[in-house]
């Protein structure tokens, strides 16, 4: 069984003012293997973030199931789902959303705050992840004392502190300049090379081309997918230019070369 199985997921919002319903996701099915790096692309309002938060155990679908490591995420109670997020998921937000009043080390320790382990062990674990993103020497700095790239890396460190099997990223380079964005993507690629499963929402075709697979969503439905080389071609056709750099496929532990299980219902 795939590490992540999204089965016939639909999401509908009720608009009480208009007395109508808006369908954000329509019958989405996809499987993701452990160690895969998935990029989810689509225009604004297409349902990317909704799908991300649904996979992220934060947004109950109106229909369908999300199974992660064979666990029916929405079969859990709210509190157990919080525990699940703590244990299985790491989030990287577009604007990082670091706690401005905590140091880099404390920010990295956040996912460990409720853990029963000792403060010393929490500190050690946080230092390990900080060093893995080359921020070991800036552990005592506040977020506003870090550059944009360092803040991005700190956000990744925070997401990795509890060693989650799945890393979710919502446009992690969206607010960064291209150089800083590349810096962050390097970190993602390195993590992926070490076996980290990554599910990333992005507008950036260049970044998407670095993934193992690119899922494309339009009006709440997956409309296309492809392996990396197909993705690059698809993106090139769509945007009428070739991606500038490609780092695809280095050292991955599990790559699905088969077409995505798109269910064209």
């Amino acid at each position, binding site marked *: 069984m795939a590490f992540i199985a999204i089965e016939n997921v639909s999401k509908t919002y009720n608009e009480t003012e208009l007395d109508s319903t808006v369908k954000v996701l329509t019958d989405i099915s996809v499987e993701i293997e452990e160690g895969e790096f998935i990029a989810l692309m689509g225009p604004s309002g297409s349902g990317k973030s909704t799908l991300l938060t649904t996979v992220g155990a934060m947004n109950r679908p109106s229909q369908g199931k999300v199974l992660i490591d064979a666990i029916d995420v929405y079969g859990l109670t709210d509190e157990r789902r919080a525990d699940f997020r*703590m244990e299985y998921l790491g989030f990287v937000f577009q604007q990082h*959303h670091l706690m401005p009043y905590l140091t880099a080390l*404390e920010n990295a320790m956040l996912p460990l705050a409720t853990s029963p382990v000792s403060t010393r062990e929490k500190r050690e674990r946080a230092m390990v992840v900080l060093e893995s993103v080359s921020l070991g020497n800036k552990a005592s700095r506040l977020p506003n004392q870090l550059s944009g790239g360092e803040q991005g890396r700190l956000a990744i460190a925070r997401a990795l502190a509890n060693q989650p099997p799945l890393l979710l990223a919502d446009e992690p380079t969206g607010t960064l300049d291209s150089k800083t964005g590349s810096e962050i993507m390097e970190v993602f690629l390195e993590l992926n090379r070490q076996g980290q499963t990554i599910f990333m929402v992005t507008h950036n075709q260049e970044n998407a081309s670095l993934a193992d697979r690119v899922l494309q969503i339009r009006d709440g439905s997956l409309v296309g997918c492809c392996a990396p080389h197909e993705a690059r071609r698809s993106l090139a056709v769509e945007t009428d230019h070739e991606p500038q750099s490609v780092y695809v496929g280095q050292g991955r532990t599990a790559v699905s070369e088969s077409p995505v299980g798109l269910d064209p219902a």
Partner: protein
Amino acid sequence: MRISTIAFANLNRRKGKAMFLTVGIAIGVGTIVALLSLSNSIQEEIGAQLDRFGANIVIVPQSNSLALDYGGVSVPGVTFDEHQLSNEDVEKIRQIPYHKRLSVIAPKVLSAAEVEGQQVLLAGVDFKNELKLRRWWRITGRNPETEGEVLVGYEVARALSIIQPTGQAPQRGAEGGEHHSTEEQSQFKIVKGELQIAGQPHSVAGVIGATGGPEDRMIFGELLHVQKLANKFGQLNVIEVSALCKGCPVEEIVGQIRDKLPHAKVSAVQQAVKARTEMVARLTRFSAAVAVVVLIIGALMIFTTMMGSVVERTKEIGVLRAIGFRRTHIIKGLILEVATISAAGGFFGWASGLAASWVVLPYFSETGVGRELNPTMLFAALVGAMLIGTLSSIYPAVRAARLDPSEAVRYI
């Protein structure tokens, strides 16, 4: 890193808001502490004053016969009694366990005597104690100093032509201070200094201004002298006792005196006790009403601030929920913040309230009693502030915890 680390770091980050809330709570707690301290001191003082105002325990011989009425208290016949009180009984009263609470013990012997051809009630009293008990007496002349000197009641003095109407004159209070009495009382002067009582000459030391009480129709002489005059050596007809106490256990004192004087009838003057209790109860009700208003205002202030804080921190709470914080973790963090602020507010409120009460106490109280550090009040201030802070924050905290993380993340 624990939830408390986040809570304290957040307080440190929002110093201004935390300070504002602390000051607000401190003002509320301070007001209540000051009010309670003042009210407590005033209660003590009123209690003491009321206790001093007159006797609240009357002791008379055990008898079925009722002959004379004195001060609204029935006194057995003065001509014959099977169980008379005696001078020794006064000493016995001084030996009760609560003897330190007895401020005045005023023994009396009563006798009908012929004065200038008229029957008058003559009372033998211990002037030192009697004048302490009758603080409302206004005496024209002076206090008796020797055996042969008497104080004459206003009506007796008028009937025996001891006084004559005159203009305004300064008068001396029962304890010797200068007083300006009412117009009627002040418009007389002593014109006759000698009286024949039971055939013996006595000098009039002073005349008691009209009180409307039984003393207007009496003559007061030195206890031992009257006992001798009335041929009642060592005998007493009534002993009045003033018990000075806060939350006065009058009934217990009465019980102790009964044990010592089984042959006597000991009764508490309920009116004095009731008046005192009523006065204290009113003060307590007033303090409680103000405290409730302050508490409500304080709770609303905390509630509003916390609601604002939750809205302001929607993103932060959303991120924490997305990371995997449980609802209970969010509530715990927020409540911890408020509890810390409340404890600080409670402490500073207690300190400032106490200081304020000490500053203003002299304007409300003559004695300034109650100037003491009360650990119970400190404990109550801390616990009360934390309780109000926590209760006021429960709804905002629960609301924060109920934030749908995906909704909160939408803001992100």
